[in-house]
């Protein structure tokens, strides 16, 4: 089947703006750069829980994805060694970056 030429341009624009467009962010590198991996390792415990533990926790919640988004972007109060402190906020360049990070964490 051949598409009429007048449909090709609008279809191209629609596809390139759609949310299924691959996001090129290297999440692990970005987390490293923003200092997240100072306190979190992927499968080992540091001062914070491992990324795998975090993923397990949020995957088990009904609204886990949104809860994780809130945790990453709102600097909630956390407890480390019995002391309360503010969790460092993840600073995405755009929503796509944040989605990529959330997807990556939940996939662990």
């Amino acid at each position, binding site marked *: 089947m051949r598409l009429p030429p007048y449909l090709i341009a609008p279809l191209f624009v629609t596809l390139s703006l759609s949310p299924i467009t691959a996001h090129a962010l290297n999440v692990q590198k970005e987390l*490293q750069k923003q200092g997240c991996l100072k306190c979190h*390792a992927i*499968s080992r*415990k540091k*001062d914070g829980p491992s990324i795998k533990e975090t993923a397990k926790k949020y995957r088990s919640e009904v609204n886990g994805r949104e809860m994780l988004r809130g945790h990453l972007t709102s600097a909630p109060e956390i407890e480390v*060694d019995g*002391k309360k402190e503010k969790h460092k906020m993840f600073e995405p360049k755009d929503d796509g970056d944040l989605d990529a990070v959330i997807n990556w964490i939940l996939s662990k």
Partner: protein
Amino acid sequence: MRQIIKKYGAIPLLIAMIIGAALVVGANVGMAWTNTESFCISCHEMKNNAYAEYQDTIHDTNRTGVRATCPDCHVPQEFLAKVWRKTKATMELYGKITGKIDTPEKYEEHRYEMALNVWTRMKNTDSRECRNCHNADKMDPEKQTPEAVDRHAKGVAEGKTCIDCHFAIAHYEPDGELAPEDLKPQ
């Protein structure tokens, strides 16, 4: 010495001194040359993996531009330890020639083993290469966050060394069971 000079003249002695000095200078120049980032990349299988992972981390790019390059973390500064480490590292060149880790898949397959080697070395030396730049006695608590002050105090009280907490900050974390804190110094 006088007898030798009398017998052979001063020229052989002078030649020996020049050769000796050339060897010392040559060894130092060679050692410095093999301790550069570009030299490491030219011989070890690291450009697209370990080095790419390191780029943009805090040890590569930061506010002041002071960098810790490959040898700062992986080669001792003390002469004999440095020579011994470099001698052992030549074994890795065999891996480079035979293509032991020349694809991303092969690299991942060996990542844990390589990380364990580095972690073990750091545990055995109380993270000596970290301490070449980071002097715990000169850390000013006034300039650290309160969280960092607490965590360093806790680490010291628990007998931990740098790598126990600061692993996987310059290269990606490997899959595997053990963490640096599980490894006992030998």
